[in-house]
């Protein structure tokens, strides 16, 4: 294999790894959002990743999380010897780039100004992602004709066995990636609330309305971020996923 071919393959591998990194707030891939601007791999296994955000002011804590997640996602590739992630045109670009390179935590990088608990923030947004992914899957299943009573009683193993179309498979995989965010103890039900509690069939409409609040917000943010990114860099907007309406299911027993 030529050196050039190896380089291209490696870059593709890096991009694939980066696709798994999400903007915590939007729960969308940093590559799909157009944040990643450059991937370079040297013959020695060094990787340089360039990225940017919609504004100079985007929250430093989220920027740090994304940069650190990118480093971690790429570092596990077997041929990688070093990873350099560089955020550009951001108020805290320097502090973030240095902090991530040195493997320092957010608080270490920002000193006294960083009082917040980044792990708590990460968890808050993992929970929101759990809610969004659950909403998308529930909506899909209800639309396909599954009844509320069957859904709320389904356990995780049951969901894995559940007969699904291609879109349903995709949504279920995405949801199950986040199912463990909620500690449900011995409760192995597939669909639980953020406290790990079962959902009564008659409460499913109210449950979905709450989830919808989270979905609409995140999708609205996505539009805002894409729009600002596009005007900042004079490009056409990356196209968003179509917004999903969470339908109000029929009350249990109405089928």
């Amino acid at each position, binding site marked *: 294999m030529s050196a050039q071919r190896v380089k291209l393959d490696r870059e593709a591998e890096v991009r694939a790894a980066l696709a798994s990194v999400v903007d915590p707030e939007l729960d969308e891939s940093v590559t799909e959002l157009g944040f990643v601007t450059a991937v370079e791999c040297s013959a020695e296994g060094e990787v340089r990743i360039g990225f940017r955000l919609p504004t100079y002011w985007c929250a430093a804590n989220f920027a740090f999380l994304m940069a650190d997640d990118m480093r971690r996602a790429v570092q596990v590739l077997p041929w990688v010897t070093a990873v350099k992630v560089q955020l550009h045109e951001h108020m805290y670009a320097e502090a973030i780039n240095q902090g991530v390179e040195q493997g320092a935590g957010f608080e270490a990088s*920002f000193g006294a*100004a960083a009082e917040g608990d980044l792990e708590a923030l990460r968890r808050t947004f993992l929970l929101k992602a759990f809610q969004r992914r659950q909403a998308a899957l529930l909506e899909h299943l209800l639309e396909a004709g599954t009844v509320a009573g069957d859904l709320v009683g389904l356990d995780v193993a049951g969901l894995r066995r559940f007969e699904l179309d291609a879109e349903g498979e995709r949504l279920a995989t995405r949801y199950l990636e986040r199912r463990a965010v909620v500690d449900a103890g011995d409760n192995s039900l597939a669909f639980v609330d953020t406290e790990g509690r079962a959902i009564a069939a008659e409460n499913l409409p109210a449950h979905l309305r709450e989830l919808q609040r989270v979905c609409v*917000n995140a999708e*609205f943010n996505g539009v805002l971020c894409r729009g600002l990114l*596009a005007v900042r860099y004079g490009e056409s907007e990356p196209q968003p996923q179509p*917004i999903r309406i969470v339908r109000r299911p029929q009350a249990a027993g109405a089928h």
Partner: protein
Amino acid sequence: MFTTSSGEEIFVIDGHIHNWDGSKANQKNMHGEQFINCFYGYHTFLQPKEKQWTREKFDCYGAEQLYRDLFVDGYDDMAIFQPTYLKEFYINGFNTTEQNAVLKARYPNRFIVNGAFDPRDEEAGLAALEELAATHQLKGVKLYTAEWKGASRGYKLTDPWAEKYLERCEKLGIRNIHVHKGPTILPLDRDAFDVADIDHAATNFQGLNFIVEHCGLPRLDDFCWIATQETNVYGGLAVVLPFIRNKPKYFAHVISQLLMWLGPDKLLYGSDYGIWTPDWLIEDLMAFELPEDIAKETGAVLDLEAKKKILGLNAARLYGIDIAAQKRLLAKERVAVAA
């Protein structure tokens, strides 16, 4: 004033306007430059192409342009100045109560001038607030909980000093607390969009109204949740409304959520002028109908009654404006100008 096709006149109070100086000459540092850049990004993203301004005009548009855009070319009848001091970024501040008061003196029936405070100024700031309230007969303040101040990167309304200031507001008759919970002003690790402090403050200060500017974007979901539980929490639609033209579907989703969780009595129109102009915003809102599927899913209703509340009735209630009397005053003013 917006007149419907059936001839009904709708009184419009713009809950969120600025008269800023973002010019190079006023910028103190890189942050000042990037701050106005970011505003211009919002402008170019959502202001209709044919109505977009040049960068030069956007940096500092001035009083006459403002008056024309709001009250002559736009449909605003009155407007509320929300100050944004940002003295760490701009030499004379970005947009201060004192500067706004100059315009109010020229057009006393058009403007409401809000003040500002920063609880990190502690005792000295309380005295300054008293003075500001007396000079400008303040009925409202605008707070930036994420604003920098020395080593501090923000505060919460639940901080002990913030509570002292809120107590003082109650005493001074400053009943409307507008809190910026939205994008653009940098948050570091303190999550500046977090609306949880509003929840506590609203419970503890029942005599005050908390108007959450930009509806807590990008934490709209959390905002809806707390606002539902508090009777004295309102949503300011600045930044939300401009999506109506380019992204009507998203706007429909958001406004339906707000209507479902908060209801039409709790929402206030605001243009966020000069980022956007009231002409098209109001034309679009008046013409807007919720798509049937969204209305059906959420049960939200955005009819003429709801629009009248959002555009003026709610702000009139919060600021004690007698709309009929105000209409007469403004009509007299027009006659005087014509003569």
